[in-house]
């Protein structure tokens, strides 16, 4: 074992939540370490090629998208747009989203983290063990990169792993739903004459795929496919919501055997679809499979058990909490089957407040969670998991951990005041709309 590194805050997981958490902590002046298993930051938005940020704007009937949060989500959206890596807001059905480019998302994350003198980023690093003191506080972690071990100590910790890995290794209570939302394989198709998808073209493509599935030419797994032209010439992003491969056990996001099956199954479907399209469809003759993701996209996995849990009813009625630190502004978008989403909108499009206690792990006083593994019900998670909300909960978990590391009094109001202060330092990109 090499010598131990000491930080104020360690953030495990560099997806959108971990990125926001690490930046918020470091910007508030605390020495911060961000650990990431891949070679770039962004998580689902880069490694899984998710190409839209949902949950950035308030739900509404009337035109004119309004940002849901002051602070980092709006700053990141504005910077990504300015860098040419985002388009929008775009209205889809009755929600507003920001369309993003995974490559420029990763590049911006590099630029923002590199600019922080208090922040160290370690790529290609997995957490393998956690030790706690007699009060349940996390003391130290062991990490692993290509056979080399390191160890780190911190005063406060953020679990932004998406799978509650840090909490689980610490022995803190976790939960996982018996039925999970489907994973998805997203890939890029180049060389497409995308005009053929204008107007009703996308639906007609869907009809052709459905007919080919019915005739046995394509596998039934391809009924979970969805295409979206990007802002770049000739490029389509194709999303395949993955059912369980024929004959296999149900998907388990914590099992390497199950993940391996899904990765291979997703790529097999992608190759079959590309071959079919190039052979059969006008506008696809010169199409080619331009990029596979680094990994299959995960919507739902293990979560922490927090000091409070956001329930389905909270989401649907737009609940308020006395320790609210962020807003959920996305419908419950439950994708349990590869037949598309079941959408449920909250009453009157009201946002649901996210309480600080849902980010605080039960029984581990210096552990915070953010992103898709915060404490919620299975259905509520189908709203809370989106990237815009991950950016918001990440920022607040990072600030909470930083304030705790400095020994400051922690409450929802002191946290929100701290966020205003930090956002003020980056005012050229701070959104002006109030939450």
């Amino acid at each position, binding site marked *: 074992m090499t010598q131990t590194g000491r930080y104020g805050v360690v953030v495990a997981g560099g997806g959108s939540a971990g990125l926001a958490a690490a930046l918020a902590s470091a910007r508030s002046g605390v020495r911060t370490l961000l650990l990431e298993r891949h070679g770039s930051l962004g998580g689902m938005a880069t490694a899984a090629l998710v190409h839209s940020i949902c949950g950035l704007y308030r739900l509404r009937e009337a035109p004119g998208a309004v940002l849901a949060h002051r602070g980092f989500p709006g700053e990141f959206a504005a910077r990504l747009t300015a860098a040419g890596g985002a388009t929008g807001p775009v209205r889809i059905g009755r929600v507003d989203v920001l369309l993003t480019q995974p490559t420029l998302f990763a590049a911006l994350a590099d630029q923002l983290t590199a600019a922080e003198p208090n922040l160290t980023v370690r790529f290609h690093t997995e957490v393998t063990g956690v030790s706690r003191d007699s009060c349940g506080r996390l003391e130290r972690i062991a990490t692993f990169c290509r056979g080399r071990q390191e160890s780190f100590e911190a005063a406060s910790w953020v679990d932004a792993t998406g799978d509650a890995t840090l909490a689980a290794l610490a022995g803190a209570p976790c939960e996982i739903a018996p039925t999970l939302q489907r994973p998805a394989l997203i890939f890029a198709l180049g060389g497409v004459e995308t005009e053929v998808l204008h107007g009703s073209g996308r639906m007609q493509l*869907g009809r052709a795929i459905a007919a080919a599935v019915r005739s046995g030419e394509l596998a039934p797994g391809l009924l979970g496919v969805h295409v979206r032209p990007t802002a770049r010439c000739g490029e389509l992003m194709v999303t395949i919501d993955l059912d369980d491969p024929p004959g296999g056990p149900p998907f388990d996001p914590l099992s390497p055997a199950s993940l391996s099956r899904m990765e291979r199954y997703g790529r097999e479907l992608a190759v079959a679809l590309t071959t079919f399209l190039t052979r059969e469809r006008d506008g696809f003759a010169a199409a080619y499979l331009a990029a596979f993701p680094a990994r299959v996209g995960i919507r739902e996995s293990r979560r922490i058990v927090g000091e409070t849990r956001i329930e389905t009813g909270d989401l649907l009625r737009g609940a308020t909490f006395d320790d609210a630190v962020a807003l959920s502004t996305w419908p419950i978008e439950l994708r349990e089957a590869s037949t598309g989403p079941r959408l449920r909108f909250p009453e009157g499009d009201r946002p649901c407040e996210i309480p600080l206690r849902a980010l605080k792990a039960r029984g581990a006083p210096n552990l915070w969670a953010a992103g898709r593994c915060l404490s919620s019900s299975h259905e509520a998670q189908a709203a809370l998991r989106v990237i815009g909300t991950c950016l918001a909960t990440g920022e607040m978990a990072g600030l909470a951990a930083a304030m705790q590391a400095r020994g400051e009094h922690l409450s929802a109001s002191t946290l929100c005041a701290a966020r205003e202060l930090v956002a003020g330092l980056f005012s050229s990109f701070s959104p002006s709309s109030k939450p």
Partner: protein
Amino acid sequence: MSQAIPDQQAIEEQLAHLIRERLLDLPDGFASDTNLYEAGLDSMGIMHLLLAIEDGFGILLPEADVSEKNFCTLANLSRLLRTLLARQ
């Protein structure tokens, strides 16, 4: 073919049933002129709806009839199905 063509309302009810059962939680107050895309119907859902229509009505919709306008509401989709059923 001697069988009578179901009326518009019967087709709308059967379609609403297919959609509820196989695709979407239709919101309260859902009506034949409610926008299906806003209720969550996307291109993935449309593939499943096309197959459900084929199973339920015995028709695979011709590609030319698969349009944004025809799938926008239950009323539009039912009108199209009635026309196609009459042609059979």
